[in-house]
Structure formats: C-alpha cells, structure tokens
C-alpha cells in the first residue's frame, strides 16, 4: 500500500532519506511548473524549487502533520515565488513590455503534445506566449490562485490555506483573475487552435 505524503514526511523525520527522495520525485515537476509560471524563468524556478525542498528537509525534525503536505509545500513555494517576483520587480520595470520575459538561453524544455508542422508550431508558440503573458500580467496573488486552481487542481480550502485568506476572499480573487484573463485571452478564445479542434487541416 502506498504511503501517504504525511507518512513519507514522518519517515523523513525519523531519518529515512529515501522517503525524502520519493517526495522529491513526486513533487519536483509540479513544483517547477508552478514556480516557472509564477516567475517566468526556468533557472529561477529550478533554484526556487530546490530551495523549497531544502527547507522541507531542514524542517523535517519539527514536522507535525497539522495540515496537508501539499499545502505546506506550496505555501513555501508561493512565499518564495512572491518574494522573488517582488525582488525582481524593479529590475523588470526596465524591460519593454513587448520583450519576451525569457532569453533564448532560458527557454523552457517544453514537451510537445505530438509532432507538429512548422506553421502549427509557430502558431502554438505564439498562443503559448500570449497565454503566458496574460497569466504574468495578473497581480501576484491572483496569479498564484489561478495556477493552484487551474493547474494544480487544488480545492478552495487548500488554496486559501496556501494564500492565507478566507475561502470567500479566494473565490472573489479567482473571479477577478478569470475576468482579466477573459478580456486578455479573448482573441485566442475567438480563434481556437485548428488542430485541437480537428478542423482546418488538410488531410
């Protein structure tokens, strides 16, 4: 029977480093994705993810299962990401809003859903960039709420715990965030990807 995250963490507390490795394998990808979408830089996202795991490891002796492990994990991640975004705000203010957030060197290693033609790939890259910028344009807390809600599929109680707000406040936060995205992504909504819809492709 698979051990729960809490049990794994209690085993880490008891000195079992293999359990920590198990947690690392389980959460490194969701964490790096979440952090990448928060800070928009793969190198920074990886550094932050490492810092999150290191903090978890350092706190193992004091760990007590008072909340879900993921709530604790993503709370650390969110706080680190928010601090990182705030620290870099002044630096980013000097960059043109039209410039891509990442340099070519730090382009993420994205996983293509399938082999695409060049024109499809370009269209998809453009759409991805629009989505990425729309998410990045949200205020930090709204951004974190959307990422945890949409991509991590957490329930409201857990997200509220991570963001340290009430469920009611969270629901308003999410509404405002999706309202902004509704406006910003309207062109993409109006033009769905052809190959996804199965239309407009020569056979």
């Amino acid at each position, binding site marked *: 029977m698979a051990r729960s995250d809490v049990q794994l963490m209690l085993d880490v507390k008891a000195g079992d*480093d293999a359990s*920590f*490795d198990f947690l*690392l*394998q389980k959460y*490194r*990808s969701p964490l*790096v*994705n979440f952090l*990448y*979408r928060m800070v928009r830089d*793969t190198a920074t*996202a*990886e550094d932050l*993810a*490492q810092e999150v*795991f*290191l903090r978890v*490891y*350092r706190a193992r*002796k*004091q760990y007590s299962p008072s909340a879900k492990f993921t709530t604790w994990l993503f709370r650390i991640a969110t706080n680190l990401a928010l601090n990182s975004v705030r620290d870099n705000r002044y630096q980013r203010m000097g960059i043109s809003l039209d410039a891509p957030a990442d340099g070519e060197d730090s382009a*993420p*290693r*994205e*996983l*293509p*859903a399938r082999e695409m033609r060049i024109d499809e790939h370009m269209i*998809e890259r453009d*759409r*991805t960039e629009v*989505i*990425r910028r729309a*998410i990045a344009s949200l205020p930090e807390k709204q951004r974190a709420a*959307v990422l945890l*809600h*949409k*991509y991590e599929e957490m*329930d*409201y109680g857990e997200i509220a715990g991570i963001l340290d707000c009430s469920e*009611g406040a969270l*629901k*308003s936060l*999410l*509404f405002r965030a*999706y*309202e902004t*995205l*509704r406006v910003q*992504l*309207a062109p*993409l*909504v109006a033009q*769905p*990807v052809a190959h*996804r819809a199965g239309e407009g492709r020569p056979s």
Partner: protein
Amino acid sequence: MKCEEVEKGLVAYLDRRANSAERRDVEEHLAGCAACRTRAEEFRKVWSVLEEMPTVEPSFGFDARMRQRVAAEPQRGWFDWFVPQSRLAFSAALLVALTVWIAKLPPSNPGTPGTTTATQQQDFNAIQNLGVLENFDVVTKMDALSDLAPAGAQQPDKSQPNDTTTND
C-alpha cells in the same frame, strides 16, 4: 441574486465544486441574466485556452543537484534530543552564561580569598549573639539593621554611640 453576488459563486459553480444551495442560486441567476450567462460561457472557454500552456520539465541535473545539497546539510546527532530548536539552544546558552556571570559576581563586601568560611562563621556567631533580633520593636525599625556588622568588615566599634538602640 444580483450580478455582483454571483461573482463569488460563479467559479465554484463552473468547476462543479459549489454546494447544492450555491449551485441553485447561480443557476437561477444565470437563467434570467444573459450577460452573466455569456460570461460563464467565456470563462469555460478561457479555462480551455489555459490548458494549452505546455508543461516544463526540470533539467536533467535537478535531482543530482538536489541530492548534493541535501548531502551537504549538516547531519544531526544524538545531541539533537537536547537541542530541538536553535532558539531553545540559544536561550539555554544565555541562561547558563547568565548563571555563570551571577555566580562570578564579587560579593558586596568581598573578603580575602581563602577566608570565606571563617568570615561566614564569624557572621553566624555575630547574628546568634544579637539580642536585637529578639526585640521586635527594634526589628520594625529598619535603621537597626545598620547595627549588623557587614561580612568581613571590622567588628563594630564599641566606643561609637549607637543611635538606634540608645534612642529606645
């Protein structure tokens, strides 16, 4: 229900996490509000667009780097049982330092080193023979305490007049 009131319930309604009462309220509102109906439909489409975001994978060296950093962490030993937290350790160290400092404080009237026991015995004899302790009236007047010979000091000069006792 007004449009502003739907705000809190709309997202939970659309992702099917609203309870039955919330769902009923939103459904009733949407049935009579074309604007909110359109908004709800567009929210669904936005969620579909957001799913186009590709996932990123950690770099190949991520795990190795992480294990290296964990291995570099100081391993804790048996003494952790005594020092569960650094703050507690700091407090304990501070307490020990304070105790040592107080213990090393010179007495208010230091005697010659090596004569402490003799001085204490001398004081004890002096206190034992003090008739003043049996006199309650004198004790209530704190000035009488000035009669007490300070530890290690010279014996009170019998030739000096004693203000407190002579006044009684």
